[in-house]
């Protein structure tokens, strides 16, 4: 079963909810190795998306929702997360195209495009202790599931679990990109807040898919 506009809107609502819920934790993580604004910035960004969901035109697609998130985050998130997530959602929207329903391979393609957008914008590689460390394992897991014929919900579940493991695995790493890189060795021992928020957003996508399947 494919995922449609209802899933996409639900994903955004769940994203706003989980970011708001983990706002303090993200701020704490970012305060340890960054400038401490990640939770606040991301919360503001997603809260700004919510009222705009009601203005979506009839017949909007998942791609339209992703594009709405992209432009809103770019305009409202003051830190690096704005352009990075904004680019991710924008590239994801382009991969989704005008499809009204996204199946397993389509979801995997959206995630791949999003990850590629983050890499292109931030120029970070795996192991640099950034959100890429959550996204790359997520994309690899999603691709593997999609290739074996899994449906969209299973693809997202695999992506979310891999992103969570990837975020956890950033803890011992020494940051080589972003504000945390100024700390050098001292950044080791702390989880990267961008990887953590990426995992939260992908978990929200998987939860929304489970809810959609239960309808």
């Amino acid at each position, binding site marked *: 079963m494919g995922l449609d506009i209802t899933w996409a809107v639900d994903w955004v609502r769940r994203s706003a909810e989980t970011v708001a819920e983990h706002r303090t934790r993200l701020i704490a993580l970012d305060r340890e190795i960054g*400038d401490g*604004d990640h939770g606040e*910035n991301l919360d503001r960004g997603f809260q700004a998306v919510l009222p705009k969901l009601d203005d979506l035109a009839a017949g909007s697609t998942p791609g339209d929702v992703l594009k709405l998130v992209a432009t809103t985050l*770019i*305009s*409202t998130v*003051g*830190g*690096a*997360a*704005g*352009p*990075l997530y*904004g*680019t991710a959602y924008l590239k994801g929207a382009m991969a989704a195209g005008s499809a009204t329903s996204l199946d397993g391979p389509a979801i995997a393609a959206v995630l791949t495009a999003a990850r590629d957008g983050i890499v292109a*914008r*931030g120029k970070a590689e795996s192991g640099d202790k950034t959100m890429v460390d959550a996204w790359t394992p997520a994309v690899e897991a999603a691709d593997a599931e999609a290739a074996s014929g899994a449906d969209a919900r299973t693809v997202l579940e695999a992506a979310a679990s891999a992103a969570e493991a990837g975020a956890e695995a950033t803890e011992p790493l020494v940051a080589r990109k*972003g*504000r945390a890189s100024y700390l050098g060795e001292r950044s080791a021992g702390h989880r990267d807040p961008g990887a953590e928020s990426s995992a939260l957003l992908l978990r929200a996508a998987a939860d929304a898919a489970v809810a959609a399947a239960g309808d």
Partner: protein
Amino acid sequence: MGLVFVSHSAKIAEGLVELAAQMAPETALIAAGGTDDGRIGTSFDRVSAAIAEADAGHGVVVLCDLGSAILTAETALDFLDDEVRERVRIVDAPIVEGGVAAAVAAQAGDGLEAVVAAARSAAGGDVDAGEASAAGPGSTSADGANGPQRTVRLVNPSGLHARPAAELVKLASTFAEPVTVNGTDAKSLLAIMAMGLTKGAEVVIASADPAGGAAVDALAELVESGFGEV
């Protein structure tokens, strides 16, 4: 030619406009600092608006401070029309030094690529450092032994600061030969300004190249003329 200063801090961006405007009063210098609601951060909308304001069709050079300022500026570029994007450059350079150097070049009427090069010349200082060690602190006498040298006195009220420094560097840059002011590369605006020479200071203008006589004479005459201030 227009310049855009993207900083996490509105005060830094505005202060830089103020500083650079001393040397580039007729150049479009636009501040894009802070977030839309005045917090520390960078704003896609502010940067986009600043680029539009700075763009008079001849090019825009964008200087950024920390990481996300560059990301925001790059994202703003992605959203420009292709025709506009072609004449906008983001320069990875120290925002203050690069910004001032770019402003002076823009004010002097340089084209887009020359302004970009001026901004980059302030990055890291490796180019300047190489030239400085070649000319060398305290190497004035050595220069004098090999090439032409003249000693003049600064007569203008503001000394070798801001506009006069820019004029001197601009003139020095028109000569192929190396030329120094008190042993410092006369083609490096930042190095000249860093000396902080004030009215009444004795200035030794020299070239290590025996063919540098015209350059030394031109700079000495500019200094003696008082840069139009007297």
